[in-house]
């Protein structure tokens, strides 16, 4: 038998266990723990042979299975009143409970997937531009302050997953020329700014290098000027070519 299913295919050790239970058509409420444990370990070993990293949860589950297996071999402890009740039950109980609960979650996930697919077959249309129907200028926005704006940004930054904060925006190939155009557009809006403000949306090392090179190029071309007021202070950048391109 080939263990050609990579562990990645399983969303966790419970998923792998369910797969084994299903494959061997055994009753989830009466799991042949020795057989399933062997199978489970065989999967992990196959992964090892393939030099794939095994998430620690898979190893924890292996230990749990082995513990259950060994407890199954022991004679049931005689009932002693003070002992914890759970100890006298089937050693598999807790695992079965977990499997059943997880199975329900998987069932629900499958339902959601189905609905998601169905919903993705449905299209709407962008809202109509209603400006022609409201000839006067739109009513001014009220009840919103600068701090609402900053707060919105702060919340947004918290919502973005850590690793995506440095992720590059897809499909954008960075060239120094493009970056120069972009920086100049921004400089025309800002007139003067600091280096950090100017390059603040450089989200990767690559983007930052490109931005830095672009700033150097623009300086060389005399389109911007840089100055540093304090040692180690922020570098101030001033637009110098404004008259030329407006």
């Amino acid at each position, binding site marked *: 038998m080939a263990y*050609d299913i990579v562990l990645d295919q399983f969303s*966790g050790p419970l998923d792998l266990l369910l797969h084994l239970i*299903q494959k061997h058509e055994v009753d989830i409420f009466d799991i042949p723990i020795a057989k399933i444990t062997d199978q489970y370990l065989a999967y992990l070993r196959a992964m090892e042979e393939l030099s794939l990293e095994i998430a620690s*949860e898979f190893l924890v589950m292996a230990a749990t299975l082995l513990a259950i297996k060994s407890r199954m071999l022991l004679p049931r402890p005689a009932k002693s009143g003070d002992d914890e009740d759970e100890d006298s039950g089937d050693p598999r109980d807790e695992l079965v409970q*977990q499997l059943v609960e997880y199975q329900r*979650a998987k069932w629900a996930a499958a339902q959601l997937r189905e609905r998601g697919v169905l919903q*993705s077959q449905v*299209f709407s249309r962008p809202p109509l531009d209603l400006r022609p129907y409201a000839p006067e200028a739109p009513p001014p926005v009220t009840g919103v302050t600068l701090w609402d704006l900053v707060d919105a940004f702060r919340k947004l930054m918290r*919502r973005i*997953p850590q690793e995506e904060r440095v992720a590059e925006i897809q499909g954008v190939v960075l060239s120094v020329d493009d970056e120069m155009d972009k920086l100049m557009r921004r400089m025309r809006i800002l007139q003067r700014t600091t280096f950090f403000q100017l390059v603040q949306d450089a989200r990767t090392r690559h983007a930052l290098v490109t931005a830095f090179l672009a700033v150097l190029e623009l300086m060389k071309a005399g389109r911007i000027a840089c100055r540093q007021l304090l040692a180690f202070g922020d570098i101030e950048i001033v637009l110098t070519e404004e008259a030329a391109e407006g």
Partner: protein
Amino acid sequence: MMFSMTGPLEAVLFAAGSDGLSLVEIADVLQLSTDEALQVCRELQDQYRDRNGGIELVELAGVWQLVTRPEHAMYLRKLATAPTSSHLSNAALEVLAIVAYRQPISRIEIEAIRGVQSDRAVQTLVHRQLIAEVGRQEGPGRPILYGTTPTFLQTFGLRSLEDLPPLPEEPEIAQDLNLFQLTPALPRD
């Protein structure tokens, strides 16, 4: 009189497009009571059903909107990008399902059910605005509690959380094991 309001309703829903309109907004724009507005909505829904045309009226997350009928998706795929173009990983879907049925729920509780770390999946779902922080749990560390969002309802075509299919009973599920077969693309021995 009721009947003739389906025309104006269609016009305003068409204009609202993917924004959709709540019943209150519809009532306000058409100058009806919300009961009357609901009646007109149902009437228009019936008309679309009878006509068997290209669009229909659906209620998603408390918002009424016109959408294309799913059976025409093949023509539309050439034209438009699907609203839920980027799909969710198995892990993310599992977490989402757990949050949907067990909300409010903390990350620790999600991980207890899945038997595996779920912080990345949770983060992805928060970023996609499918789940959001809805409160804090009492107790040490006051862990964040998550719940689903209106975007969740829209993405999965649900009017409300009550539209979620009921979870099967435990014994039932044990028999349904073959529901969870791995994707058919995987080789079986």
